[in-house]
């Protein structure tokens, strides 16, 4: 048997002493996976703040964030299923024989439960609109809307009232489901005892908080861009309200991330000698300048200064999105950058220009596809269920 390279070898540089079989096996896709999942959770929490907790200022973006969270939810598992698995055709094995001692096995159950909750909530939220369209539209669109009514044409006052109660209920159970979804993603990393940088019970909470932060930031970011593109007026009250939610959650996220590193350093177990060189040397710029400086401190100042403007909200949300992505990157790649021998390093070089299947699957092309697709899906959903219009306003 001849072979050109082994999996992981094409993008891993090894230094000093690493075990021969060690490579960066979890690449950029494993950073994108929790990133997208986090955006889902954040967007959903935002819509629930209106539906459950009655934050009226968020009404203009409640439906948008709900639909966006669905678009993100469809794409969230794709980095894993399409690009990461070396046997993608077997991804359904997770459903056939889930081994529940594994954090990844919960994936199937948690994702499909959450998907169902969001889909049903969307249906209730748009039911009146769907029925109206099914009655008035012509041709293929009429058929699509008719199918979407699921045979329910009752839009009486009483029925709509029931819808609202259903939405409230779904949004309420959706919050713990969203927390569980992202907490479990954090646990995938936090439970790996052989990777010192990951192994902490704080990990699920850290992931959850940065998830909410990134999701809210994405909603602000996309809302402002969409309004500009459609040349419509941006609701400043809604933007400020989102900015407030973002800022408060950022305080929690930042505190937890600091606590994680402080406790690693204070306990200074035997892996700290090399882990500290990852944090304070090899990933210092990534962590302190990008993830915390530009991604946390600057936007927090911008958001907490009185009289939040649209421009300031936009800049801070863009910075937060970058910062949270860097956090995912630093955890996933940084964690693997130190050898399990504690005596060597690995450096990850992401393939940019694909020259074979492996560098295509694990490279920049796939990354761009994954990060653009949620917006394409949002645009597509908007054709059918307008996200920025009030119910029944037509299209």
């Amino acid at each position: 048997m001849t072979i050109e390279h082994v999996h992981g070898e094409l993008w891993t540089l090894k230094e000093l002493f690493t075990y021969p079989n060690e490579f960066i096996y979890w690449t950029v896709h494993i950073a994108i996976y929790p990133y997208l999942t986090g955006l889902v959770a954040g967007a959903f929490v935002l819509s629930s703040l209106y539906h459950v907790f009655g934050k009226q200022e968020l009404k203009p973006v409640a439906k948008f964030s709900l639909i966006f969270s669905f678009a993100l939810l469809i794409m969230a598992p794709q980095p894993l299923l399409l690009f990461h698995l070396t046997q993608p055709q077997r991804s359904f094995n997770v459903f056939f024989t889930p081994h529940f001692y594994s954090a990844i096995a919960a994936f199937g159950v948690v994702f499909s439960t959450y998907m169902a909750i969001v889909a049903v909530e969307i249906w209730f939220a748009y039911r009146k609109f769907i029925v109206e369209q099914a009655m008035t539209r012509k041709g293929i669109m009429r058929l699509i809307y008719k199918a979407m009514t699921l045979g329910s044409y009752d839009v009486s006052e009483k029925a709509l009232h029931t819808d609202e109660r259903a939405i409230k209920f779904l949004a309420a159970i959706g919050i713990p489901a969203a927390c569980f979804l992202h907490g479990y993603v954090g646990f995938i990393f936090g439970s790996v005892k052989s990777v010192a940088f990951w192994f902490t019970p704080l990990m699920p909470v850290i992931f959850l908080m940065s998830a909410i932060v990134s999701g809210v930031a994405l909603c602000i970011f996309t809302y402002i861009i969409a309004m500009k593109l459609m040349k419509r007026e941006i609701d400043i009250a809604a933007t400020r309200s989102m900015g407030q939610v973002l800022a408060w959650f950022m305080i929690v996220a930042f505190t937890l991330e600091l606590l994680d590193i402080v406790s690693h350093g204070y306990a200074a177990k035997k892996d700290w000698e090399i882990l500290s060189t990852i944090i304070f040397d090899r990933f210092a710029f990534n962590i302190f300048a990008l993830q915390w400086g530009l991604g946390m401190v600057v936007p927090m100042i911008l958001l907490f200064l009185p009289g939040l403007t649209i421009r300031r909200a936009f800049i801070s949300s863009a910075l937060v999105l970058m910062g949270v992505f860097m956090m995912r990157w630093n955890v996933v790649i940084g964690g693997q950058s130190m050898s399990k021998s504690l005596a060597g390093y690995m450096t990850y070089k992401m393939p940019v220009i694909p020259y074979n299947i492996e560098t295509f699957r694990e490279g920049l092309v796939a990354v761009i596809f994954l990060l653009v697709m949620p917006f394409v899906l949002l645009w597509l959903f908007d054709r059918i269920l307008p996200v920025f219009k009030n119910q029944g306003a037509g299209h």
Partner: protein
Amino acid sequence: MKHSRRDFLKLGFITLAGVTLPLSAFELLTPEALATIKKGNGKRWAFVLDTTKCIGCGMCVKACKLENEIPFEANVSRTWVERYVELKNGEVLIDSPKEGRYGYIKNDPQGRNIKEEDIAKGFFVCKLCNQCEKPSCVQVCPVGATYKTPDGVILIDRKWCIGCGYCIQNCPYGARFFHPVYNTAEKCTFCYHRITKGMNSACVDACAFGARKIGNINDPNSEVHRIVNTERVMVLKPEYGNKPMVFYVGHDSIVR
């Protein structure tokens, strides 16, 4: 068609029960549970590595690659040999170029030229899968494709592994990798296909110096049993709680 509230509730409960029951059935059939249901015959394979006897020839790595069809030129291996050189100034140099498959023929740890008089001590350490009593790789496999046999060896089902790499991340010893041809998780099996037929593991047969020994640790007549129970032995990284079943004679604190 009209349904009463009673009918609705009845149907609802039946559906709920129908969905929950198969789900709970899945949980019963974990590989660990299966392994305990199947009665083992009290056999437990274990390995002894006498590092004082290893000369770093790399014949074990060669034999392993050929026996287990790991492409010879691929930079991964089920077993490998590490070189440890401690200098008199306290510096420790460790390497394992090409998994040690070509043997160590020059005094060049980490590609550096080291004078013999500067060396305090130097030795070789062979590594392979530890076939842990509490394997973290088995614990984390999302589809149950890797499992522990009743006689203690961890195997991988190449036809069921999805290739997520979670087991590779969770092995503290770096024993696992992706097979370059099958693209599924791969690791040492103590040559399960040989030891279950009364033969030795390929690396054991290839070692001319008796540094590698395989046997049933529960058999009082086996050499492995004798060494583990009468000599001073050590396992790698006991702090992870995996309870490895590869025992080292002549272990040193600089070994990683």
